[in-house]
Each structure stands twice: as C-alpha cells, then as structure tokens.
C-alpha cells in the first residue's frame, strides 16, 4: 500500500479510496460464497435436488433459524468484548418456558413479553454482577448460570413440553407473512439492525470493540469498563429473552430442550462472524450469514439422509473453525 504524502494536497482524495485486492475480497466474501455454493450444491445434488429447493423447505430453512439467529446476535454483543456468554441459549429456553406457561394460563401477550425480556434482564444482570464485581471468569459464570437454568426448566416442566392455550394472535405473528415475507423475518431484520446500530453507530459500540481489543488501554482512555462489560451481558440476556418469546410464537408452545439446541449454533455463528464480511471483527451481518451457512449445511445433509448426529459434527467443527479464523485474522493484522 502506498503512503500518500501528508503534505501534498493530493492525499485527501486518496484517503477514502479502498483498493480491494483479490485476497482481501476473498477473505471478506468467502463465507457468503460458501453459503451460495452450499445452496446451489444441494439444489442440484441428486438426493436433495427435489426437496432442498422446494418452497416449503426454503421457508422452513429461513423461519426455522430466525430465533437461533437472534440468540446468536445476543452472544455477539459480549463477544465483541472478547467475553463469552454461554448462557444465551439457556436464557432463550427459560424465557420460552415461562412465557408459554403464563400464556397457556390465559395471560396477556404484553405481560408475557415483560416476563420474557425481564427474565433475560435478571439473568444477564446476574452474569454481569458475577463477572465484573465478583470477578468470576465469564465462561465459568455463564456455564454455571446456564446449568442452573437447565435445573429451573426441568423443575418447572418435569421435562414435558408446554403446548396449547397460546393466543392465536401470537401464533399468527410467529407463522404468518407480511407481503409474502415471514413476520419473523421482519423481527430478525429489526433485531439485526438494532444490534448493528448499537455496535457500529454508537459510542457504546465503539467502546465495546475497544474493550475487546485492549482492556488495559480501554481503562486508560477513560472508558468505564465495568459498566460497558456489564451492559453487554445485560443486553445479551434481554435479547435472548426476546428470542424466547419469538420461539413460543413460532412453535405455539415451548419445549424444555429447545434452549440447549440454540447454544452451539448461536456461539459458532457469533465466532464465525469474525471471518465473514469484516475479517478480524465480530459483526452482525457476518453472524447472520454464518447462521444460514450452518443451517443450509445441516438442512441439506439431513435431506440427503445423513444421520442426525452429523449436525453435531458440523456445529462443533464450525465453532472451532470460527475461532481459528478469528485468531488467524487478528494475528495477521
């Protein structure tokens, strides 16, 4: 890269011009390409050529992964600080159970939303307290709270799914369409835009990235680091809680195991985002691309008749590859 002479008048013009060379383009769009390649492959691969590109499957693929995509956005916020929140899946599950339970007892949707998001706020707040005030490592803290949540869910449900009695309006919201677009997709777009706005367009977001890059320097430029980190966990909890409400809307009830099934793909996607679109930087669009990349892979493999355990291989490998790529990109920078 040439260095413009700071004294010459020319430099101003060149400063805003990015010269994307091939390797940088490949880095940025590799995963988008992989997503498209996977979709094309399963559309023409004989065992899945009929089922995969069908309208029904595409719709299931999209709507079926919206909740987990929002859970991944929740995991993304503390991850920008390089702190891990393993409890986002559990929080979404807890929220869905209590929301469904309340609604099936005849409760109002408004109060149910307060319950769902409020639970996320409480757990997120507890995580934040343990991590920033008590000083427990974030992995341990959120692993611990997620296990406790699993206990609460088990105690509450006895392992049985809650179904029936969910208000029709909510189910309609969860399964309906607006101008042909699933209503839930609009919810994901809104959640994605809100997170993107927070991370990229507010001083708070910049402070999160600064914290993630160098904690000590963040303290020394006057960032209130404990506040910033706490807020990231609280926001993650609230977003995961909101995802739990959407899960009830989509499924018309709540399954006690659903939270667990979110955890791995959500974290894998959040990690992979550092290898998508903005290499070396965890980001919203990358997270969503990664979620749908994993979903396409899993859906295609299932349709091709692969046994269900293959999905574990895919998600686990994606988690490791995501972290490895993130490390590789940040090291090279």
């Amino acid at each position, binding site marked *: *890269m040439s260095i413009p002479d700071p004294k010459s008048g020319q430099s101003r013009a060149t*400063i805003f011009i990015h010269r994307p060379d091939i390797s940088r383009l490949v880095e940025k769009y590799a995963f988008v390409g992989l997503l498209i390649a996977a979709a094309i492959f399963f559309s023409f691969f004989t065992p899945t050529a009929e089922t995969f590109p069908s309208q029904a499957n595409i719709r299931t693929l999209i709507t079926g992964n919206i909740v987990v995509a929002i859970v991944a956005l929740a995991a993304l916020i503390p991850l920008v600080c390089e702190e891990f929140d393993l409890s986002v899946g559990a929080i979404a599950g807890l929220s869905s159970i209590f929301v469904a339970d309340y609604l099936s007892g005849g409760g109002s949707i408004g109060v149910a939303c307060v319950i769902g998001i409020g639970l996320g706020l409480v757990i997120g707040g507890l995580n934040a307290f343990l991590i920033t005030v008590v000083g427990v490592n974030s992995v341990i803290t959120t692993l611990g709270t997620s296990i406790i949540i699993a206990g609460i869910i088990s105690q509450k449900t006895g392992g049985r799914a809650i179904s029936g009695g969910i208000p029709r309006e909510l189910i309609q919201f969860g399964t309906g369409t607006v101008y042909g677009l699933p209503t839930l997709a609009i919810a994901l777009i809104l959640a994605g835009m809100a997170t993107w706005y927070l991370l990229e367009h507010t001083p708070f977001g910049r402070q999160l*990235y600064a914290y993630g890059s*160098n904690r*000590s*320097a*963040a303290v*020394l430029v006057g*960032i209130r680091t404990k506040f910033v980190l706490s807020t990231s966990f609280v926001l993650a909890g609230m977003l995961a809680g909101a995802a739990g409400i959407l899960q009830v809307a989509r499924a018309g009830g709540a399954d006690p195991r659903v939270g667990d099934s979110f955890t791995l793909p959500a974290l894998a996607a959040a990690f992979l985002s550092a290898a998508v679109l903005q290499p070396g930087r965890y980001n919203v669009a990358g997270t969503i691309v990664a979620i749908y990349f994993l979903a396409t892979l899993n859906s295609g493999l299932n349709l091709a008749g692969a046994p269900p355990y293959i999905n574990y291989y895919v998600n686990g490998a994606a988690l490791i590859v995501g972290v490895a790529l993130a490390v590789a990109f940040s090291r090279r920078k």
Partner: protein
Amino acid sequence: MTQAILRLTENTAAVSDAAILRATGISKAFGATQALDLVDFSLQRGSIHALLGGNGAGKSTLIKVFAGVQHADSGQLDLAGRTLDARLVRPANVHQLGMRFVHQQNATFPSLSIIENMALGSGFITGRTGQIDWKRQRARTVSLLEHYGIAANPDDRISDISPAKKKMVEIARALQDIDGAGDAVLVLDEPTASLPTTEVDLLLDALRSYAAAGQAIIYVTHRLEEVFAIADAATVLRNGRHVATLDPRRITPDHLIEHMMGKAVSLARKPEPRPTGQTLLALDRYQVKNLQPVSLHVMEGEVVGIAGLIGSGRTRFLKGLFGGFSAVSGTMHIRGQSITLNGISDAVRAGIAYVPEDRVADALFGKLSIADNSAISGFGRFWNGWRLRKFAELAEMSRLIDEFLIKAAGPDAAITSLSGGNQQKVVLARWMRLKPSLLLLDEPTQGVDVGARAEIYHLIDRAVAAGSAAIVVSSDFEELVSHCDRVVIMRNGALIGEVIGDQVTVENLNMMANA
C-alpha cells in the same frame, strides 16, 4: 554437566590468572549504529564489578554477547580458562562454562514453594518411577538456603518472603549446579530496581558475602550509591566505547558521573524560555496511595520533567494524577478549580490526558484502525444524539493525520501498520484533539526513532504554547534537559528537589536522582 564443570576447574587451576572472564576487543554494530566498539572487560574471581553507562551506552549489548544471545562482529572471550571466539559463542557454551544470569524482571513463581522454585530451575530430582523425590529435593533446597544465607523455610511460598530474599532465591537457583563459588560468573542486571531501600541493604550484604566466598559478579546498575557500597571495580561504557575502569574506593561520585556522561552533555540544547501563564495545576500535599505527599505547581505553557530511577514512584505518581490510583490526602486544583478523582473518567473530564509508558500494552487498540484509535478518547461532536457521524469523524481523522505528522495510508489503516513513532503520534493525537489542560507523558519517546522523537516534542511544545502544560517522565535525562523548563526529582516516592534554569543539566539530575 557436573563432570564438565569439574574438568574445567582442573584446567583453570593450572592457569595462574585470577581473571575468570576476560573480554577483548568486542565490537558489534547494528546497521549504522556501533553498539560496541572494541570493548575490553575483565572480571576477577571473588570480585564485584559494576558495569555502568547511560541509555545506549552498550551495557545490555555487552551482556548479551557474554550470554551468547548476541553474536559480536569481532572479539574474544576468555571464560574459565577457555578461549572462545565472540562471533560464534552460543548460550549453551557459556552456560557450561559457568556463566549465570539473574535478570531485572522477577522470574520466580509466586504461588509455588521455595523447593519448587529451586527445582524448576534445574529439573526435579526424581526417583526410579519418575516421581519427584521430595526428600532429596528438600535436602538440596535446605543446603542451598544455608549456603546462600537465606533465612527462610523451604516450604515458604515465594509470595510470602521479602523482595530481597526473592532475589537471593533467584541467585541461588541460578548458581545451584555450580560446585565451587570460584567457578562461575554471576551477572546481575539491576537487581535492586524493584526493592525498597531497607531491602537493598540486605541484598547488598548478601552479595558482599558471596563475593568474599569467591563468587565473581558483574553488577549492572543505574544506582551509583550501590557502586560505591559494594563494587571492587567499575567499568564505564559510553556510546559503545570503554571509557574507563575505575576503583570506586578512589573516586568521587562526581568523577564517576563525569566519566559516564562525558563532556558533551552540557552542550545539550536548552529550550528557549517559554512565556508562562497562570497556575494550571496546583497540588497541595497531594498523596497518591503508597507514595509520599507531593506539593507542586505547574504553570500554563510549562513543560515540567520528572527525573527519577525505575522504582522511584515516578510512573505511579503520574498515573495517580490521572485517577489510576486513589489519593490518600491533599488537594488538586486545575485552573483554580478543585478536582476530586474517583477514577480515570473523572480525570479525562477534568481535561487531563495520559500517555502511558508501555504503548503496546496500555495505549494501543491493536485490532482497530487509526481512526478508531484516536476517536476513542471522546466522540463529542461526532455523536449527534442518535448516531455517530462517520464521515465527519473520518474527515477529522484525516486532518489529524496531517496535523500530527502521522505517516499513514489513511484513517482506515490498521494501527499496527504504523511504525512505533507514528503509533505514538496517534496516541498523542487521541488526546490533543480534545485540547486537554494537562498532559501527563510517561516515557513519550520510548522505542521511537530520533526523527519521530523530535516531532513528538514539537507536538508537545505546540500544545503547551496553546495554553496547556505537560509533565514528562523520562529515563533519558538528556531528553529532560533539552525539553523541560524545569525538572523535579523523585526518589522513594517523594519529590526531593527541583532544578531550574541553568541548573538543569544531566550531571545535576544524575546526582540528585542517584544521591
């Protein structure tokens, strides 16, 4: 290993020379810089030989040549009766011949016992099945503690013993596989740098007794009083040359400093006297935790230096003024307004800026761009209430790149793509764009080349001329002399004096900081 050492002992016994180490004609150049120029050095058995010189004198290069980590361009080492070519020496060679190093940084494991710390230096003694033979390990540690006069229990954790004893454990650990005191060269690099005064005396006493038992010691230090307290000889390097080898018992401190600094020092450029305004910073018996109360007034338009050695409290004091440590007592006023610092964000709000000593660890956001690195100190007018105006921000950052003479591809370039000096200018721009009242600069030119160094001081001068003030900490006293209006001296956590006007000379600063 033991056998090799024994054989060497026989060899050396045959040589009727008391010198265990003799270096002849050592030269080493790094590019155009001649770090060592035909340096001679000779160390007698049972003596403590101080190695002195200012920054860049060549002390550490010489030590690295001794260690075999740095290959000399020419020269010869005679070590324990063997002649080695200084161009080819490897660390394993000199280690086998009894060269041992204890570095300035603490290299003990605080949460482990003395036994474990000793064993981690030389390998655990194991039994037949590979298990640690704790009984023999303990016996060996007990005898080492006894031999090196360390009054401690082998089971004590390192974190529970005093700093001087820690250093002695490090020395014992380094020397534990040497059979006789006369068979090794012990190199101590600034061993007292992190010790409180009372502990220094304990360590010096111990070193004296080791030397009396025949141990040869090379003692690298900045603290001249220690040279006079324990050294049998002192070799002074300056600009890579051997200036003199002196007997500390026959010379005065002034004499020694003169040798260290040379005559050229007094020629250091004095800054033009700057017009000063009203009092900007007023500290009245302001006491940062763990330091002494400090009273200090700094005027608008003034650059005040703090001269002190490592461990004098200079860095802690500066960080304390930035709210990094709480104040125990006293008051701080900025432009007449009383300031209470409960944290760093209070200091930033009060218009204080701080450039830390360790740029990579404490100042840079390595993953972020130049723009992000400089905007992070405050988004101010880029934040219009609901979003950051990125274009305004980038435009401002492009302007800063010009204004602060930063050589960069653009505001979006990664901070890590810049040289050290340009990174430091980004750190300065980060604060100076906020027009702070008070700049606190800790080693602002560390790891920065000469050209960028001048530019950095030019930027500081410009900010000060616009009505702020700066406090500069530097180990490089020449730098303080040429850029500060006055210099206060810090020692043992207290301001012990001040030099102003013509009195600001490297000799005076050295005298007071070391006294």
